[in-house]
């Protein structure tokens, strides 16, 4: 079973990340958050050569990576994933995925039916957040910002629709 983890980020300012950062710092008073960044994860599984699949995904469609506005990178496995660049602070990565992954299922159908990539048997979609924290941030700061258990608690994952994994 082969795997391709494609991480996509905007070249232009990311308004989703900016608004989430505003909500966490200004509305929920998480002063320990210095910067919030976002990448989209497309995780392809199946029987394929990863390099060949990537080439086809980049050449045949702009659905996953639109070169006019996206930059991308590959990671071999998510377990060792690091921030895409360095900046001040401590970079904590959190992957948020839907409990019902309609985007992944739509992408799978697109790969197989439209692009003819029959070797792809599963596609998962998620959002990889990088939370840049102050050095003295509390140890539970990430969970408090992610786990949206109440109006004044958390934002990035509603546990009734999403799950998350801290790396």
């Amino acid at each position: 079973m082969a795997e391709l983890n494609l991480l996509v980020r905007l070249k232009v300012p990311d308004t989703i990340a900016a608004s989430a950062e505003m909500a966490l710092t200004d509305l929920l008073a998480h002063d320990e958050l210095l910067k919030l960044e976002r990448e989209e994860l497309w995780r392809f599984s199946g029987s394929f050569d990863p390099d060949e699949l990537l080439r086809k995904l980049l050449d045949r469609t702009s659905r996953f990576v639109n070169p006019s506005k996206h930059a991308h990178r590959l990671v071999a496995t998510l377990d060792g994933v690091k921030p895409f660049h360095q900046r001040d602070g401590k970079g904590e990565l959190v992957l948020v995925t839907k409990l019902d992954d309609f985007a992944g299922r739509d992408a799978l159908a697109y790969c197989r039916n439209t692009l003819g990539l029959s070797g792809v048997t599963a596609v998962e979609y998620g959002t990889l957040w990088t939370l840049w924290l102050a050095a003295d941030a509390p140890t539970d700061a990430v969970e408090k910002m992610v786990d949206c258990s109440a109006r004044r608690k958390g934002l990035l994952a509603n546990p009734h629709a999403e799950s998350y994994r801290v790396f």
Partner: protein
Amino acid sequence: MPTVAVLAFPGTNCEYESLRACRAVGLDAELVRWNEAEKLKNAAAFFLAGGFSFQDRVRAGAIAAKEAVLEQVARAADSGKPVLGICNGAQVLLESGLVPGLTEGHPIEAALDANSQGYLCRWTYLKVEQPERSPFTTAFEPGEVIPVPIAHAEGRFTTADPAILDKVEAGGQVTFRYVTADGSPADSYPDNPNGTLNAIAGMSNPAGNVLALMPHPERATWLRQLPKNLPGVWGERRRGFTTADDPDLAGPGRKLFLSLARHLGVN
């Protein structure tokens, strides 16, 4: 006269039609921006209008739910004042924990997640359940079926805890349910347009004074707003409607606002 505060966040786009729907039944409705909380002091009821607050960033309704003005809305809800959220307003109410509102302190107990079919803008049929339980439905007959349009990408009621759904059903909190044009259960798309659990289109809190409703009754407040190709009695009425008729003839959604007006002693 009691005032209905129609709340608008950045990205709300249904505030003016919401104001018109309230005023059509004699309510005194005032537009209140999210950063004008001081205007809410005298509000007798709150109406979170539809649209795309904060452009649905992160999740629909998620950021608006964190705004300070929701603190006042929550206090009003707890005091028994009517609070209505339509479409994006409904998403804000769920992200605020005000609906289903089973537990004290308003933890988030559910989500309005992505539709199974993506963004949808179409007419649906709703059955009104236990209309006596909510100040927004008392003018309806039990089991009344009405056509109301939807326009959303995230309206699929879901919860990770099946016990919550059981409590919502047992408590009679489902106020509107998607059905077929003849009122039969909507088992699948397109009658259940978004794959929502138990075909739930609108849900109240246990007390009934807070209603989160995904379809847009303000877009079905006048008969002239209906398309002529609707099946059923409302379609027949619309096809018989001419420019010589009164342009203010009521559409199927008006009873929701009429219910609120009666509750507030206006109409």
